[in-house]
Each structure stands twice: as structure tokens, then as C-alpha cells.
């Protein structure tokens, strides 16, 4: 974050790290890269995640999947709402981060942060409605009770939007975890600081470690490893480099990953009503049959 140096006191600056399994490691590769502000000045050195970091993050996400996916929808909603509470408490910090990273006015940044918080609240409210909206009972022709329930797809890799570093990030991550998936997120490459601040929010909320893992680094370097990872079940290519997306889709075929392609026409504004398409993208439908009779 930019900070004012006064004559009396040198501020304590932050070291930016990754967020994997609920912990904040540096990259195992010991690499970092320079993050500039929208105006071009030095903001920070962010950790540059490696292939190994991405794999560690997938392991953490897989480990967390069992409990998170089996948690009650009510409980997941409580946890997501708690994240919104923590975000609200650090609103000022996020506004600063958005101003610095995206180069927008404080006013715009304020409304962006407010929307991001409200979006967490919206998805917090979705957790226990998904099954009713996406599932149901099926009137089969026979003496059977047959119902379909939506279930999480598994470990979802997310290539977060490049431009909208906070609202975009929240808009793609929240729906993934609301339905019980766990995720490995590659943050906006040039604007990673809101993601790191979000990681600090997540760490102090009630979200179990490993449910959301945040990597900072070079998107084109990390995305292929996640796309070809055999223990990743789905991938969201929203923020992927368009030049690379065909290759990423091709790699995703190796284990029949569910692929959410980047929106045609580039990154959307994120300010509109999110709808349910992102919730639906990472759901499986399980149908259960049982005979009926006496």
C-alpha cells in the first residue's frame, strides 16, 4: 500500500506472500516480482508463485474439499457472511488498494469495494438455496423415488480477472466456494495486492484453511500447470491470456475438466447482477433412485 513517510516515523511496510492451506508462505522458489501502481510507481514486491506452489495449493484445496463440501449449506453461508463482515471492517484498506492498483478515483474505489462486500453477502445467502433451485425430484414412470441434487465439482482453479482486481476477484471466487468447491486462484498479475489483502481477510474469518488458496505471480506461467493438473476438476479461464486460452482448454481435456471460458467480448464490468450462471458452472448433478413399495 502507498504510505506517507513523515519526518517523525517510517511506516512498517508489509511483505506480500502467497496464501496456501491457510498459511502465508513465500514462494518456494524465493522469487518475487515488482508490482507497480496504476501510475507506474513502485508499490510492492509480490511473491512469484512457482509450479510447486501451484501444486501445493492444489493439495491444500483437495485436502480441504472433504470437510467443506460436506459442511451444511447453512454453515457455509455463515462462513461466507463472516468474510463479508471482515471485509467491511477493512473497507478503508481495500479502497486504498483499489485506488493504487486500478488508478481509479477514491469515489469509484469506494463503490467497487462496497459492491465486492455486497457480493459476498449475496453469495452467502445462496449456499442454502442452490439445492432447491438447481435440484428437485423427478416424476419417473415407475415405483421409484428419484431426486437430483447439485453437488460441488471438486477443486476448481480460477484465473482471476486481470483488470478488476477486487470486485472481479470476489465475483469469480465466491460462487465457486458457495456451492462447496475448494479453489486455487491465480490473482491479477499486475494488480495482485487486493487479493493478498483478501487472503488476510480470509485467514481471519472462519473459512477453513485450504478452501481458498491465492497465488500471485505470472498468469501465463501458472495457468498451464493448473489446466493440466490431474487433480483439478474444473477451471475458470476468465482472466487467462486470450493467446493462451486454446492451449489451456486443450490441457484441460486431459482429465475432462469442466471449463468456464473467458467471456466473449473481454472482461465484463462486474457491476451488474451476477445471476446464477457462475454458481451453475461448478455444480454436478447427482441423481438418486430408490424403489418405492410396501
Amino acid at each position, binding site marked *: 500500500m502507498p504510505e506517507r513517510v513523515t519526518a517523525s516515523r517510517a511506516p512498517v511496510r508489509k511483505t506480500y506472500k502467497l496464501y496456501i492451506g491457510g498459511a502465508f508462505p513465500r514462494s518456494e522458489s524465493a522469487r518475487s516480482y515488482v508490482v507497480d501502481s496504476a501510475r507506474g510507481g513502485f508499490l510492492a514486491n509480490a511473491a512469484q508463485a512457482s509450479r510447486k506452489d501451484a501444486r501445493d495449493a492444489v493439495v491444500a484445496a483437495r485436502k480441504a474439499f472433504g470437510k467443506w463440501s*460436506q459442511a451444511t449449506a447453512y454453515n457455509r453461508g455463515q462462513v461466507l457472511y463472516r468474510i463479508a463482515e471482515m471485509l467491511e471492517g477493512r473497507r478503508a484498506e481495500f479502497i486504498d488498494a483499489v485506488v493504487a492498483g486500478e488508478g481509479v478515483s477514491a469515489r469509484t474505489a469506494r463503490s467497487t469495494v462496497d459492491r465486492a462486500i455486497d457480493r459476498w453477502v449475496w453469495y452467502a445467502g445462496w449456499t442454502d438455496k442452490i439445492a432447491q*433451485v*438447481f435440484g*428437485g425430484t*423427478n*416424476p*419417473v*414412470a*415407475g415405483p*421409484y423415488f*428419484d431426486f*437430483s441434487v447439485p453437488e460441488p*465439482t*471438486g477443486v476448481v482453479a480460477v484465473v482471476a480477472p486481470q483488470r478488476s482486481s477486487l470486485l472481479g476477484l470476489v465475483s469469480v471466487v465466491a460462487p465457486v466456494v458457495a456451492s462447496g468447491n475448494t479453489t486455487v486462484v491465480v490473482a491479477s498479475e499486475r494488480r495482485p495486492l487486493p487479493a493478498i489483502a483478501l487472503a488476510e481477510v480470509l485467514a481471519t474469518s472462519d473459512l477453513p484453511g485450504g478452501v481458498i488458496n491465492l497465488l500471485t505471480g505470472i498468469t501465463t506461467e501458472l495457468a498451464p500447470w493448473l489446466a493440466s493438473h490431474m487433480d483439478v*476438476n474444473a477451471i475458470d479461464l476468465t482472466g487467462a491470456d486470450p493467446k493462451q*486460452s*486454446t*492451449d489451456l*482448454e*486443450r490441457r*484441460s*481435456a*486431459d*482429465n*475432462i475438466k*469442466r471449463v468456464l*471460458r473467458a467471456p*466473449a467480448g473481454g472482461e465484463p464490468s462486474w457491476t*451488474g*447482477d*451476477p*445471476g*446464477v*450462471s457462475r454458481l*451453475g458452472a461448478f455444480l*454436478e*448433478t*447427482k*441423481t*438418486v*433412485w*430408490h*424403489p418405492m413399495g410396501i
Partner: protein
Amino acid sequence: MSSTPPVWEYAPAPESREIARLRSSYGMFVGGEFSAGSGGSFKTVNPATEEVLAEVADTGEADVDRAVRSARRAFDGSWGRMPGRERAKYVFRIARLIQERSRELAVLESLDNGKPIKESRDVDVPLAAAHLFYYAGWADKLEYAVPASANGRRPRPLGVAGQVIPWNFPLLMAAWKLAPALAAGNTCVLKPAETTPLSALVLAEICQQADLPPGVVNVLPGAGGTGRAVVSHPQIDKIAFTGSTEVGKEIARAAAGTDKRLTLELGGKAANVVFDDAPLDQAVEGIVNGVYFNQGHVCCAGSRLLVQESIADELLGALRRRLATLRLGDPLDKNTDIGAINSAEQLAKIRELTASGDAEGASRWSPPCTLPDRGFWFPPTVFTGVSQAHRIAREEIFGPVLSVLTFRTPDEAVQKANNTPYGLSAGIWTEKGSRILWMAQRLRAGVVWANTFNRFDPTSPFGGYQESGFGREGGRHGLEAYLDA
């Protein structure tokens, strides 16, 4: 074929093959007309006798291009502009025509595929008609099919659907693919499997009888090359594929970087889990139905039996007794339980995989069974002493072969059942309701049958987790796959 002296033999009860109205040659169906393909012709054989049934037009890239253009014209023209309530009537008509010609279709299907007539007659054809009836009713209700979208836009069809289907349920798979596509307002290019093209071509004739506008449905018989040309055609908006995981991956790679929508129904290696309190006789019936139905040519077949150790001997004894009563032979005989393997190639695959079972130390058992001299046959087979590492426990066999593993605790059952890259289906057998729900929640599979197996219904979504594919067929979910919402 029974080992122990049978109580009585059944007299043969063959269905007449005349009903199939088999012709010596079949063309491709493009733009509402039958015509010769540009690729010459190939022969389709009866797998039970190896007799050539008919010459079928082979199609190539030029034909695919013609079919896709014809489908595009139909989509841009009459079909695309037709109100849903009118479109519905055509789909209803097709459903009725299938019912009217059900005996013909059943016999034709058994001749071309090798499946027993009792299955084609009682399962394939009625279910095919049921799917068309179900989706016909959706055609004028599309705005209710998808959870409300934020932009308030009405759901729209995607355009031209390229549909590639397998040989195990040729007519049923055609109906699964065409019904939701047409109801949603798409037009279709359907490629039936190389070894079983006939019923899809009769279905094309039924589309003619229904006065379906030309180009709305096109049927292109052919082999893998034709399928590749369909899925890679630039004017295809939607690809729907049912078949092997291997080919599914190829198709997903081919669709990469395009804006084609994709649904895949791929392979499986389902666990059928039997607990010690299961109703034994029903479980045995479920196991038999689970893996020997349709000669095991079923992607959701319960090919891995996970039985609780304490009842393994008792259950296997009962299973062996039951298998000894199965009749293998002439698919057109109404008494036949197990028909022919669909092709020489498939038989070779089954033999290779079962040989690996022997080589890796599992014990093979089949009921005493005389196989006909001609045709492609494989007896119902049970492997015991199977470990999770064996190929027969990991790879899809797609034949009448059951691998038996044991477990001690419910947790172990869940772990073993989920120990697969597939996730299409699973079975649970127990009298304890709470255990059924507990298991059903933990099994990573798209369809879970509890105290039953291999049930299908057009209202019921079907499809896989993981490498068994994505998307669902059946129900509202199946319609969504053909809508832009």
C-alpha cells in the same frame, strides 16, 4: 447353457426378422432426403451370425459439410422461426411414429446390435419414445427450463448440434440426443456408430413421415473420420458426444479455442456396493441386471461389485446359481437373456482385458455355457480375488464381466467405490435407509441407484462426474445443455 440339469428347457420363441423390413441398402439422410454418400458404402453385420445385413452409405467430409449447411438453413429458416407449440407437435409426432413402428424397430435393433429382443422391445424402443414425448412438452416452455437469468433474456437455441452416438443403444441414444435438441429449437447432424447405423436411419425415415422440415434432422452413417468431421466443422454450435473417455478427450481438445458448447457422456467403472444387511435375492438380481444387461455394453454398468466381507461367500454362491440360469444365444429369441457382443473388435478388447485379469492373479468363473459357432460371443464372467490395482478393477471392460472386491466398513466401501477417475454411476444395497442416504451423499457419481440398478427415465438427469464426462441428459438439466440462457 445351464450347468445343473435345468428343470425344463424352454422351446425357442424366435421373433420374426421379417418385421424389421430390412433393406439391402441404406443411404444417408441429408436435407430431408436419402442419398448416397460421397464415400462409397460399408457393410453392417449381424453380430450374432456375422451375416451382412445391409450396405450403408459411407459419409465423408463433403457430406458432413452438406449436412451442416442443410441444418444451418433449416435453423435460420422454418425451424428457427417456428413457435414452440408448433415445434412440439413434430416431436410428439416422432414419438408416436416410434411407438407405431416399435416392433419393427426392436427387431431391427436386435439384428444390428446383437442385443436380446426382450431388451430392445421392453427397454430401448419404449424409452426412446418416452424421451421424445417428455421433451416435446418442453418445446413451448423453455423459459421455465433454466433458473432465472439476471438479464431476463429468454432462453434461445444454440443453433446446429453435432451429435455423435455409440453402438450400445443406437436408437435410444439417438432419441436422447435429438429430443432435447429439437425441443429447444436446434437443428441436428447425427452420426450413429459405424456398427449400428440402421435404427437411426429408420428414425430418419420417421422424421420424413412426421413431415419434419428438411434439414432439421440429418443422419450421417460413417466411422470415426465422419465423427471427427462433424465435431470439428466450424458451423457446428454444439457438440454432444456419448462414447469412450478416450474419444471424449480428443473431442474436448478439438473444441478448445472455439465457442462450441460441449457435453460429454463418457465411460464408467461403477461400484455396486452390497452391505451385509442387503436383501440378498434382490441384490443378486440387481448385480445381474447391473452388469449383464445389454451384454455389459453399458457405460453405467455396475462392473465392480463391492461386497461386505462377511457375506461375500453367501452372495457369490447365490450369484453363481443365478448366472447358471441365464440363457445366452439368438438375440431374436424372446427367451434370450444375453445376446451377442457387438463386434469382433469389441470381443477382442473384452478378451484382452479379461486375459489381464488372469495374468494379474484374479480367478475367473463363468457358468457352463455353450457359445454359438458363429458370431461374437462372450459368456457372463465373474472375477474374484480382484485387487484395486488390477486392470479389470480400473479399466472399463464394456462386456459381461464382473470384478468382485470386498470391504469391511462403510468408510472403506466409500473409499474403494470412489477410487476411480470415472464417476458415472454407483449402486447401494442395504435395508438401512440412513445408510443409503449417507452413502449416496459420499459417492462421487452422477447417478446412484439404491436397492435397484440401471433405471432410466426421461425426467431423470443422467451423466457423470470427473472423467465420465460433463453435462446431463434427461430432465430439465438435459434441456439446458441445448439452450443459450
